């Protein structure tokens, strides 16, 4: 567990603590060394300097997502689980979050499991995609090649086909 972390829209950090306090407490939980400097670095990296002493409950969705992501990488996990990290974000914030995650994956060589319904996002950042329904993997492959292999123009069209007719793909 010490080398794993996650971020999900349904697991917000406590709104009654400040950004700094939340990162400090979760840094303690994950046994991060040189914690105060690590928190300082993450606050800078995720553009949270203005909100350091602001309670998380007062932040916008985009700001909260950045804090959650800072918490998710605080222990430099080798496996990072993300559930809809860009859901309900404006395009600029979503772009920033995608950049941070891809940079983290590249620099740390960590594995990132990214659950998303945004197929354009998946196509842009993932090197392998799995379509999962009712706990079963229906399709998997490279997001750039997979649509063509199933006669679809892009991943979104493939997603719609899988969602509407999962039984066809279950038998593949």
């Amino acid at each position: 567990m010490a080398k794993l972390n996650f971020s999900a829209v349904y697991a917000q950090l406590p709104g009654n603590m400040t950004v700094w306090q939340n990162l400090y407490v979760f840094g303690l939980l994950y046994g991060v060394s040189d914690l105060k400097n690590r928190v300082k670095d993450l606050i800078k990296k995720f553009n949270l300097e203005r909100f350091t002493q602001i309670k998380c409950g007062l932040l916008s969705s985009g700001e909260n997502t950045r804090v959650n992501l800072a918490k998710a990488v605080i222990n430099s996990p080798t496996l990072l689980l993300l559930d809809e990290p860009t859901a309900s974000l404006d395009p600029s914030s979503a772009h920033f979050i995608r950049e941070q995650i891809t940079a983290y994956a590249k620099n740390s060589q960590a594995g990132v499991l990214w659950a998303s319904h945004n197929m354009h996002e998946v196509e842009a950042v993932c090197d392998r995609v799995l379509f999962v329904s009712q706990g079963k993997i229906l399709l998997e492959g490279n997001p750039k090649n997979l649509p063509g292999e199933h006669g679809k123009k892009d991943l979104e069209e493939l997603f719609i086909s899988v969602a509407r007719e999962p039984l066809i793909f279950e038998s593949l």
Partner: protein
Amino acid sequence: MKLHHVKAVLVRQLFLLRKNFTRFINIFLWLSLDVIVWGFTTKYLSSVGESSFSFIPVFLGAIILFGFLVRAQQGITLPFFEDVWSRNFLNLFASPLKINEYILGLVSTSILTGAASIAVVVILASAAFHFSLFSLGLPLLLFLLIIFIFGLSLGIATISLVLRVGPSAEWFSWIIPFILNPLSGVLYPISVLPGGVQVISKLIPTSYVFEGLREIVLHQTFSAKPLLIGLALAIFYLCLAYTIFVHTFKIVRRNGLLARFSSEI
């Protein structure tokens, strides 16, 4: 067991207490009000007639010790509720935090808030009513130990119930100590209770504390044996409550209810 995990649970509570007047005052207010009400009541009773009964040490001492029981229990339940209210379980238990470390973090919080609470009311009782809890002598340490351990077990049992049933069971937290009040003879000897109820009283650790308190104040005698029974009972209940909590936690985690905790079961 990693101490920095325990520290994280404690530090979170200290962050919440710091600069928050409502949380801070809650540590002292109820017990202070009890001391004020019972202080004046006993002062009045002492002034009526020619009674030689020691109202102030018997009643005020008992009220302070009972208040300490409530505080020890709430020292566990309130920090737990902070995690319920802020839907923090998923974040906490997806981290390397273990259940025994979480409980120890809550116990550390209870020690701090309980100590602060008792310190304030001891000063208040001494300044306003010339009653020193320390006049009970060394047995006071044993009284406080039994009460604290039993308070912790009540707190852990309460949070087990809330964890299993959901946030709607929170109200049990406020009432459980007061259900035990009449049964453990806070203000009267348990010998005045009906025979069947006395059997129940003897199963409650705090009964031995309040009987011991009266023995010291009224007869200037102290017998350790009943208190050791009380201590053994308190330790037994603490182990039982912890076992129940761990078992409940496993069920709730296995069923995926931690993530959907606020929806109740």
